[in-house]
């Protein structure tokens, strides 16, 4: 079997890449154009051979869609080879479905050209660059711009507060969220504003930090306090939610 696709490639010197074709129909259409054959009277045998040669080059493991098309082409080729009676009215051209899809796809390709040109033309004009800030942008939504050293320093500050973990011992005390909640509420009843360190106390254990943090989040969710952090990694401020007296 001669390999027409290879000779075609040699003549035109193009190299196939998978990205070059957006799908098996695209590749098929490309082969048809190269050969300048009529879509409606597709020389299936020739096109199928070319198609197979090209997908061989592409690497089969990446080309399931192409393999499916190859199988389809071979089936049509086989159907056309089957003998049939002269003047058989029942006979349907096995190429008809493929031809219909190719024509439809060809139309899409023409629209692609049109859309591409429209987009390129539109890109020659610029609108105003200003984009309004999304409504109610919270400080948390602002991306952190921070130096690595600041980050490390902040991490060290947090770690320094936690006593040396004793990895071999299971922490005996479970989280005490209720206790932390009560402590925060008691403190807030006295003062309008607290700092994180006021709440966790000196040298807190890991469980204290966790319990307090969960309690703060829970209280903030209920609306009985407001959490504020003036800047990244600065101490968290805990404020009594003004409309309601501390519960």
């Amino acid at each position, binding site marked *: 079997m001669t390999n027409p696709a290879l000779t075609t490639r040699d003549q035109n010197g193009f190299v196939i890449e998978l990205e070059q074709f957006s799908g098996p129909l695209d590749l098929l259409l490309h082969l048809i154009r190269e050969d300048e054959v009529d879509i409606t009277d597709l020389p299936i045998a020739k096109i199928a051979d070319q198609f197979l040669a090209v997908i061989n080059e592409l690497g089969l493991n990446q080309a399931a869609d192409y393999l499916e098309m190859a199988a389809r082409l071979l089936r049509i080729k086989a159907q056309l080879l089957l003998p049939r009676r002269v003047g058989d009215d029942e006979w349907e*051209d096995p190429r008809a479905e493929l031809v219909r899809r190719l*024509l439809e796809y060809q139309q899409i*390709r*023409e*629209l692609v050209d049109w859309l591409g040109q429209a*987009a390129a033309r539109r890109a020659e004009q610029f609108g105003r660059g200003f984009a309004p800030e999304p409504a109610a942008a919270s400080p948390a939504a602002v991306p952190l711009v921070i130096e690595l050293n600041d980050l490390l320093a902040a991490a060290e500050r947090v770690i320094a507060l936690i006593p040396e973990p004793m990895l071999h011992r299971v922490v005996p005390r479970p989280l005490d969220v209720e206790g932390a909640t009560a402590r925060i509420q008691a403190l807030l009843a006295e003062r309008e504003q607290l700092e994180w360190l006021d709440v966790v106390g000196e040298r807190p254990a890991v469980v204290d930090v966790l319990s307090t943090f969960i309690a703060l989040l829970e209280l903030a969710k209920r609306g009985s306090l407001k959490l504020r952090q003036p800047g990244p990694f600065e101490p968290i401020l805990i404020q009594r939610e003004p409309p309601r007296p501390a519960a």
Partner: protein
Amino acid sequence: MSPLARLLEAALFAASRPLTVEDLLTLDPQAGEAAVRTALREIREAYAAEDHGVELIEIAQGWQFLTRREYAEAIERAQFALRPRRLSPAALETLAIIAYRQPVGRLEVDEIRGVDSDAVIDKLAERGLVEVVTRGEGLGRPLLYGTTPQFLEILGLKDLDELPRLEELSVALRPPAPPAAAPE
């Protein structure tokens, strides 16, 4: 220009997207649609007559000030503005199918392209060019996609009617020739 035209000019200048007549009516609800349209034409003509670097364009069912084409290169060279990323052929194919067949499901797009299009559709949805518009009948009630105003905007179209009509294409989908009488 009339006071209404000046008000609209200010709003259109401040906006970063095309403003529709409905958008503009919120500036002065008493003005009425006809007056807004007249004022828009007034602005457009004023800018055209006085030879400005920007022009008022009807786009994506709205109006927007855009720089004139002849300055694109200079603006881009100076890096004052970036051109939008170009769409890949696969993305344009998928857009074309969705634009003409909308509302259309993923399966139909796959069939026409002959290749799995899930990733492409997801990317287009992410860029806001297509969106789920409804659910289809039938098995699994598939999500059906359509194009968005953003799609019109990146193509510089007023509305979908500005897309070429299928009959106008040079390879207009002729019905396939009746099965050839003679086999190969």
